C-alpha cells in the first residue's frame, strides 16, 4: 500500500522475478550467453536512479530477505505476480522457473501469485507440464517468452500451429492472463522478432476467453503495439520497462510514451510492473504517483492521468484480471458500475 496526499493506492506489481543468474547456475559451454544475458539486464538497471543501482554480484543472485525488503517492506507492493522465465539452455536450474518462484509462496502467504509458462516446442510433454503446474499452483496466468532457445530452435511465434493446443488448454483450465514478452530472435531470423502481429491474431481468436498483456508495451515496436491494442479489446499494456527504463532516464520520452498509451490503449488497460530485480518498485511507484503530464504545447494532444487513473494502473486493473480482492478504501468511486464488458470473467 502506498499513501500520498491522503490518497491510498493498492499496489499490484504484475511483473517481477526471483532469479538465480549466478555463475554456479550457468550451463557448461553456454557460459557466455548466461553471462551476457544477466549483464544486459544489469545494464538496464543503470537506467534507474544511481542510488538504486546494485553490484553485478548482488544482481546475479539476491536473497529472499532482499526480495522481502525491496518489494514488500520498502516497495509498497500488496500483491506480486511472479513471471517465470526458464532459459534452461543457459541456466542449469532455470533463470527463475516456476518452482524457484513458488518456493517463496509459503514465506509470504497471500502476497504472491505465481505465473507459469509453456513452450509449444515441448509438444505433449509441455501440455502435461502445464496441467501439472496448474494443478499444483493454481496458476491464473502465464508468461510467454518467444525468443527462448529450445533444442536448436531460436524462438517461436504465438501463431505457430503447435501453440494452439496450449492456448486451448489455457481456456479449458481457466488460465486467462497471457503475458507476452518479445525478444530479439524468432525463426526465421530474417523476420522482425519484435513484431507483435502474432499477438494480434491470437487475441482475435481468443477474444472473450484469454487476455494478452504485452510486456514493456511491445517496445521497441510501440507504434505497432498501440495500433494493435486499440483494436483488440483483450490486449493490455504491461508497463514494465516503460516506467523503470524511461521515467528517470528519459523523462520527456516517458511522458510521450505514456501519452500515446493513454490515447490508444487507455488507463483501464495499462498495468504497472516493476520488472524487479531489474528495478526496485519503490522509486517507480513514488515517481509514477508524483508524475504529471507536462504542460507544454508538445504534450497538448495527450490525455491527462489523474489520481483515479494512477490507482487503476498501479493495482486495480491487474486486480481485476487476477480476481484479487481489493479493500474498499482503495477503490475508485463508481468503478464497480462501469465494469469493463470486455473483461474475461473467471474460469468457465
Amino acid at each position, binding site marked *: 500500500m502506498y499513501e500520498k496526499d491522503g490518497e491510498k493506492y493498492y499496489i499490484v506489481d504484475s511483473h517481477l522475478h526471483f532469479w538465480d543468474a549466478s555463475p554456479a547456475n550457468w550451463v557448461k559451454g553456454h557460459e557466455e550467453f548466461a553471462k551476457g544475458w544477466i*549483464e544486459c539486464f544489469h545494464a538496464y538497471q543503470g537506467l534507474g536512479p544511481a542510488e538504486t543501482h546494485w553490484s553485478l554480484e548482488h544482481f546475479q543472485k539476491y536473497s529472499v530477505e532482499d526480495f522481502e525488503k525491496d518489494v514488500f517492506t520498502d516497495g509498497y507492493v500488496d500483491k506480486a505476480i511472479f513471471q517465470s522465465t526458464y532459459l534452461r539452455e543457459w541456466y542449469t536450474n532455470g533463470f527463475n522457473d516456476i518452482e524457484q518462484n513458488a518456493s517463496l509462496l509459503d514465506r509470504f502467504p497471500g502476497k504472491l501469485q505465481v505465473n507459469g509458462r509453456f513452450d509449444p516446442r515441448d509438444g505433449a510433454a509441455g501440455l502435461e507440464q502445464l496441467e501439472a503446474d496448474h494443478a499444483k499452483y493454481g496458476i491464473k496466468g502465464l508468461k510467454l517468452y518467444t525468443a527462448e532457445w529450445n533444442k536448436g530452435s531460436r524462438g517461436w511465434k504465438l501463431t505457430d500451429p503447435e501453440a494452439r493446443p496450449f492456448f486451448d488448454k489455457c481456456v479449458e483450465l481457466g488460465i486467462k492472463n497471457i503475458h507476452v514478452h518479445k525478444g530479439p530472435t524468432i525463426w526465421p531470423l*530474417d523476420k522482425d522478432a519484435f513484431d507483435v502481429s502474432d499477438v494480434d491474431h491470437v487475441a482475435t481468436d481468443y477474444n472473450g476467453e484469454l487476455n494478452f498483456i504485452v510486456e514493456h508495451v511491445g517496445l521497441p515496436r510501440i507504434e505497432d503495439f498501440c495500433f494493435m491494442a486499440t483494436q483488440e479489446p483483450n490486449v493490455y499494456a504491461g508497463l514494465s520497462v516503460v516506467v523503470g527504463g524511461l521515467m528517470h532516464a528519459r523523462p520527456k520520452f516517458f511522458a510521450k510514451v505514456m501519452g500515446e498509451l493513454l490515447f490508444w490503449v487507455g488507463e483501464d488497460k495499462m498495468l504497472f510492473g516493476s520488472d524487479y530485480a531489474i528495478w526496485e518498485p519503490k522509486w517507480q511507484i513514488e515517481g509514477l504517483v508524483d508524475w504529471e503530464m507536462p504542460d507544454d504545447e508538445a504534450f497538448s494532444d495527450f490525455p491527462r492521468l489523474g489520481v483515479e487513473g494512477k490507482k487503476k494502473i498501479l493495482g486495480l486493473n491487474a486486480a481485476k484480471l487476477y480476481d484479487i480482492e481489493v479493500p474498499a478504501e482503495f477503490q475508485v468511486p463508481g468503478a464497480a458500475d462501469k465494469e469493463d464488458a470486455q473483461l474475461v470473467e473467471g474460469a468457465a
Partner: protein
Amino acid sequence: MLRARVLEALGTVYDPELDEPITTLGFVGSVVVVGGAVAVRLRLPTPQCAPNFAFLMAADASRALWRMDGVESVEVTLEDHYTGAEINATVNAGGSFSDAFPGETRGELDALRALFQRKALLARQSGLLSEVPRRLGDLHGPEADRCRELRRALGIDASDDAAPFVTGDGVPVDATDVRFRRMASMTALSLETNGGMCRDLLRVRYGGEVAA
C-alpha cells in the same frame, strides 16, 4: 588513407531499426588504418541485439569501406555479440545472411530493411508537418533530404514535383490527415525512444568514452 574518410564512409551506414548513422549512435568502437588495410570494430548496446539488424550494419559497413578508393582489405568485427562469430566470419568472407545462419532463415534481409525504411519514412515526415508544401521540392533541410533518400531506396517518386507526403507504402496523403499525422508522430516517438534507450544502454555498457 585518412581515418576521417573511413568515418565518413561509416557515416553512410544506418542502423536500419533506428534510421540513424552508426557513427552518431556510437556503434563504431575503433578504426585502425594501416596502408590500404582497414579494420573496424563495431559494438552494440546489448549482447542480444537482434542478429538480423546486427548483420545488416556489419555488412553495410563492410560494403561502404570496400567502396572507398585505395582500400585493399577490410575487416569488420562485431564485438561482444551472441552471434558475433557467425556474423563476423560471414561478413568478412562476403557472404549473405543465410550463409551466416543456415537453416535458420527463409530468405535474405531485403524485406526487413524495406519494412523499416517505410517506418523511418513515416517517422521523418512527422518533423515536416508544420510546413505546407505543394510538392516535395518545397521541402528542405536534413529531414526532407533523408525522406528523399528513403523514398528513392523504396522506389517511391522522390522528384521535386512528387507529392510532398506519402504513407510508408508510397501513397500520397494529405498533410492534414489526422490519422497520418498521429501515426507519423507515434512512429517518430518509437524510433526516438528506441534510439534513446540504445544510447543509454551503450553508455552503461561501455562507459562514456566517445567512439573512434
